[in-house]
């Protein structure tokens, strides 16, 4: 086991190195000149040259790359060329918002997807199963931006029962930012009302972002529960006369959830991509919108640091998923 984890960690090294090279080269291929971006319309060739020197853009690529990587190692992500803001600060300010949103989406997907998957599996062939299949297919096919717009229109505008945007009611609750996760900060501030309000703000974006993972998790759970239900040990347990609740918990669920765990890891990448759209629609000050703006505005420093940090987080999440998978499934042997 330890060896497996070590091997996976070692594999991270080439991936990380490759990522830095890819991101570094990519932004240097982008059209436009960061020096021109800074100087705006008053850019004279001499001024551009001086700014390029100040930014180190006139030095050899290797030197620039070394600077970039050593900065990353020191956790110094640099300063945005366009807003002059510290990238690390900006990232830490926004990332918790995205984590909160992603967690809400994942909780929504898991708490509904797994039970629904089990339910439809146990009633395979019934009308409920067919309905579940249709719903999950539609869930997979509905783009986040369309679902988000429709949810917002229906439940925030037409029947205003949920907030349309933002993370908390700013008039009612002035909550000091500690973790930048509104729900957590509200609890830390002892504001129960604020906590509930923050949860309410999470519902629509959480559903918009969580629907596709919900549908996928439901399908995977259904398929793997069906597989497990056909296994001998489950049949034996049932034949022994064990209560169905015990069989469900002890035998079916535990084994059926293994493939689901892998899917969760893979969904993280989709969620980060989907966060760009969800954050745009629901005015959510997270990392998705930030990176998107950086890309369209050619904010090189933010792109080269932000994209990399996101990728690293994604890789680590997947590693964690793989490791937990290994823990959960004793049958797997890692060579």
């Amino acid at each position, binding site marked *: 086991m330890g060896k497996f984890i070590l091997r996976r960690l070692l594999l991270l090294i080439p991936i990380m190195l490759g990522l830095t090279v890819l991101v570094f080269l990519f932004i240097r291929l982008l059209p436009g*000149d960061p020096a021109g971006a800074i*100087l*705006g319309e008053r850019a004279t060739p001499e001024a551009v040259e001086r700014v390029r020197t100040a930014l180190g853009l006139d030095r050899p690529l290797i030197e620039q790359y070394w600077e970039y990587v050593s900065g990353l190692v020191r956790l110094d992500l640099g300063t945005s060329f366009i807003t002059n803001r510290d990238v690390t600060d900006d990232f830490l300010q926004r990332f918790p918002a995205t984590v909160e949103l992603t967690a809400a989406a994942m909780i929504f997907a898991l*708490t509904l997807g797994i039970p629904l998957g*089990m339910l439809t599996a146990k009633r395979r062939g019934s009308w409920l199963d067919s309905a579940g299949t249709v719903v999950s297919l539609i869930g997979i096919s509905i783009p986040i931006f369309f679902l988000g717009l429709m949810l917002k229109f229906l439940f925030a505008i037409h029947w205003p029962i949920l*907030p349309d945007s933002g993370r908390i009611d700013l*008039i009612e609750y*002035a909550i000091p930012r500690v973790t930048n996760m509104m729900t957590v900060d509200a609890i830390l501030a002892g504001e129960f009302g604020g906590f*509930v*309000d923050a949860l309410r703000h999470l519902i629509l974006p959480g559903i918009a972002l969580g629907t596709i993972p919900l549908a996928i998790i439901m399908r995977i759970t259904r398929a793997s529960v069906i597989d497990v239900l056909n296994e001998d040990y489950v049949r034996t347990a049932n034949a022994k006369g064990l209560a169905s609740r015990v069989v469900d918990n002890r035998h079916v669920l535990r084994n059926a959830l293994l493939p689901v765990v892998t899917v969760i890891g893979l969904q993280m990448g989709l969620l980060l991509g989907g966060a760009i759209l969800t954050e745009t629609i629901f005015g959510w000050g997270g990392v998705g919108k930030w990176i998107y703006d950086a890309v369209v505005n050619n904010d090189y420093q933010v792109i080269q640091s932000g994209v990399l940090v996101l990728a690293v987080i994604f890789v680590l999440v997947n590693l964690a998923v793989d490791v937990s998978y290994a823990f959960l499934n004793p049958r797997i042997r890692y060579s």
Partner: protein
Amino acid sequence: MRTWRWVSVLAVLVLVLAACGQQPAATPDEGSEPPASGSESEAPEPSASEDVDGGEPTAGGTLVFAGARLAASLDPALTSDGESFRILQQVYEPLVDLAPGTTDELVGVLAESWTGEPSDTEYVFTLREGVTFHDGTPLDAEAVKFNFDRMQNFSEEFQGDAYYYGALMDGFGAENLISSVEATDELEVTITLREPSPTFLFGITLTPFSIVSPAILESTNADDAATSTFGTDVVQGGTGPFVLDDYVPDDSATLSRNEDYWGDPALLDSLIIRPIADPAARLQALQGGSVQGFDLVNPSDYETVESEGFSLVERLSFNTLYLGLNPVARENAAAAESGVAEVYEGEESPLQDLAVRQAIEMAIDKEALIEPFYGGRGSVADTFMPPSSGWSDAILAGVEPAEFDAEGARQLLEDAGFNAENPATIHFWYPTEVTRPYMPDPRGLHEAITQMLEDVGFVVVPNSDIWDSPGYLFDAQNGFYDLHFLGWTGDYDDPSNWYGVHFGYAQGEPAAQFGCDVDGLEDAISAADAELDEAARGEAWAEVAGLIHENVCFVTLAHGDTALAFTDVVQGYEPNPTGSESFQSVWLSE
């Protein structure tokens, strides 16, 4: 079975969450509850939210307001857009400002009084006594000098962002318009100009010319591009009615009342500004109750706003959308080795022919744009000057507006030698990621005008770029675009801020954006700029406008009407055509 129960428990939980917090404070119908407030949704005047029927102004409360975005920088000198001004002018103040609601009347702010006529080169400002910055340091003449010297000596890294200083003070450094700024007494500042500048006082009303606490500028290293934190940190460097408390990029700016304000303190306890880029989403936030007011209502939503019981606060139009035409764009782009040059593929621009430019002007049915794009509230732009300007009649006297005439345009084009085999091909650009008061829907406007041009026989190649530098604005202002949209919201009411800013010559070269090099234009602009008698000034600028419109250097299209929307508890917002507005007098009824 258990799973069923679990699913239903979840569903109930979501419903409870949805139901338990239906916001009482912000729903639009709530405001009608307070007694004696009367029926205010009927008030048709633009200033529906003023305190006419909301009772006596009372202090207290929080207002959440949505703009399109937050500030580009927290350093006022480095900003040049209305969204930045909106936040920063609550915190920072200039020496003099436009009187509330006007575009051509000056009032003293940090300066209690001043001397200096448009023909003078020396201005003496007497500062208000007892004004302190939010950090507790006093405002004195040295502080003013410190600020003006700082801007004059901006290093190159800052000069691009310090657009207004550069544009209004003839650039930076010792050779610019400002000869000296001296503290002639503890509370007396004397500014000497190199030559008379009739609009100097109007220029320094703008937010970038605000006075910042020198102690803060020093402690944040504001003048060192590499280490400055002034543009990003929350600091207490202003004198205004609000203090900046918290600033989270892309999320919110939180301001609270300055209890030690030198004038009447603000009525609101705090003001929170949220960025919501899309106008439709801003309206949804008002409807959903997460904000109580927002700026730049989409014209097509005016009816919705009024019919749902919100108040619409309209500004008199003080902006103009135009179509820039540049006959030398292709040469400019090639000379600058801009990426834009690639799209032209070395072809010669048909715009060099005056007849072609005239055909473009005649092909455009400006009237047809007003209803769909401006909700019927805007107006056709015959000249650059908007209808709310005191100069619009004077300028119109010198301009002969072209009539929409598709047949005539086609004929002109044919006579110029263009036909189906040899079509006039123009590249036409629009900006993305942006809406402006004068340009509520750039894509839509582009498509509509493209169709009009194609109808008379042009071949139009669509192009676009993102708005922010180094994108669209940069390329447009450097004159790389054949045909492009751009517009202008006036800073103050003087033709020099319109025709002068756009077509002024620099070192004998015409403004790059239009490449409008017309015989006599340079002299006409200098003469008009120096003219001090009001009537003669009007005539002189009318002559300038005549030369520009005659040669179709641009086609003015429309004046957009802009408006804010508020829930009906919000009172006392004073709109200004320039968009430069204070929240000091805003209060909440209830």
